């Protein structure tokens, strides 16, 4: 069995989760802090949209922005000789776009569940907002954030549609696990895809178990706080 699709997939998912993790938290924090409900509804809709859109539509939008005939893609190519499409970077971009909503929504939910009284208490003790965020909000929201992170990682690992459109299917470069599976099956070689399928199923299952672990741990943690 050719191991390169697995390495590429793991590398892509690992890099993309780092990016998704931070921008997801940042987006969640900004949306939670928004004053106007109307603005929040619109922004939240836009940020969650990639979750429900078909990956091919996301691939379409990425191509619309980064395709070599589009302004940004052309600019990068002409001035920096950087071609994003059909490069390994493109697999990361596709993975970030599809996994972002999972991270964002989990983080948002986690922030919203944090007991407001504790934040108020921090304010009465004249803690700075930044300190409150790092010392109160984040520790309380961490289990939810962590479970969002693993979910986003699993989604990034399984990304197929947008990846095929923007990164192609180049062996040792952009051929991720799902693409390798699709190519094997299209060629009528079911047996050749067994190994890949097993890897995806096992990793995804481990990731979901991890998520449950974080959730259970999180609820205990929060209950303890309530008891105190």
């Amino acid at each position, binding site marked *: 069995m050719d191991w390169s699709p697995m390495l590429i997939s793991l590398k892509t998912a690992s890099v993309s989760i780092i990016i998704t993790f931070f921008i997801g938290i940042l987006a969640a924090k900004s949306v939670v802090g928004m004053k106007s409900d109307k603005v929040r509804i619109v922004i939240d809709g836009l940020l969650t949209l990639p979750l429900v859109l078909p990956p091919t539509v996301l691939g379409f939008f990425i191509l619309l922005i980064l395709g070599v005939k589009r302004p940004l893609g052309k600019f990068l190519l002409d001035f920096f000789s950087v071609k994003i499409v059909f490069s390994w970077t493109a697999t990361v971009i596709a993975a970030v776009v599809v996994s972002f909503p999972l991270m964002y929504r989990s983080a948002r939910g986690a922030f919203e569940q944090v007991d407001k009284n504790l934040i108020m208490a921090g304010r009465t003790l004249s803690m700075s907002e930044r300190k409150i965020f790092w010392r109160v909000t984040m520790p309380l929201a961490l289990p939810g954030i962590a479970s969002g992170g693993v979910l986003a990682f699993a989604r990034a690992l399984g990304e197929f549609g947008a990846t095929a459109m923007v990164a192609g299917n*180049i062996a040792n470069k952009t051929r991720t696990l799902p693409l390798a599976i699709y190519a094997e099956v299209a*060629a009528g070689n079911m047996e050749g895809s067994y190994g890949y399928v097993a890897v995806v199923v096992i990793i995804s299952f481990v990731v979901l178990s991890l998520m449950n672990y974080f959730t259970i741990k999180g609820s205990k943690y929060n209950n303890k706080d309530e008891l105190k």
Partner: protein
Amino acid sequence: MKKIIFILTLCLLMVLVGCNTETPPAAPEPDEQAEPETPEEPEEEPAAEVTILLAAAASLKNCIDKELIPMFAEKHPNITVDATYDSSGKLQAQIEEGADVDVFMSAAMKQMNALNDKGLIKKGTIVELLENKIVLILPIDSLTEIASFEDILKAETIAVGDPESVPAGQYAKESFENLGIWEDVSAKASLGTNVTEVLSWVAAGSADAGVVYATDAASNENVKVVAEAPEGSVSKVIYPIGIIDATTKLEAAQIFTEFLQSEEALSIFEKYGFTAN
């Protein structure tokens, strides 16, 4: 409440019925390029009106439906040609099952030969009518100096069909193997799972070059053909035509197949990327 549900159901039904009774496609416009006064051979013309069924490979749909059938209808008003399109293999199976087909046009010799071996094609009617060339395409505005199949290694990324599952990819591989560069090509190749994907990768400029059929290249204005696969490096992709042995409308079928071999029909095929064989 019940009333509302009833009305909604009624609306839904009306919409569904509406869909079914959509106006039939408008009669195809007569082709402007048709030569005005071609003398007909009246002695060949069947007196009564007949309808023949053509089974053709899916890649022929556009040029036959849009141009050739209307052109033929104008010349031979008493012969109606119905056409069914599918992959050649499926059509072959349908004909073997006794489908009421009069003329068969497949996208490779394989299916025609298989039918011929079973005695299902009328003797002496098979004509190797068209060739679909394997061509090298670039994005329309490409500035790279790729001018031949050997040059393709100058491209950073190459789009080809997956040789494991896509016939066009098999031909591409065969050609590059004969040129001795398949190893290098496959290292930078993005393998499409169908030929349309390959075409769109090149059209979008995502891949710098690609290999597709000439008919695919002719169907997309964002790509340009820079070379045909070098003579002898790849097996020919022949589109043969033949009359089914069981036909009861031999005369009409012959008139139609002769029409398809005429200069003007061939020029239509060429417009769609085929080469007269």
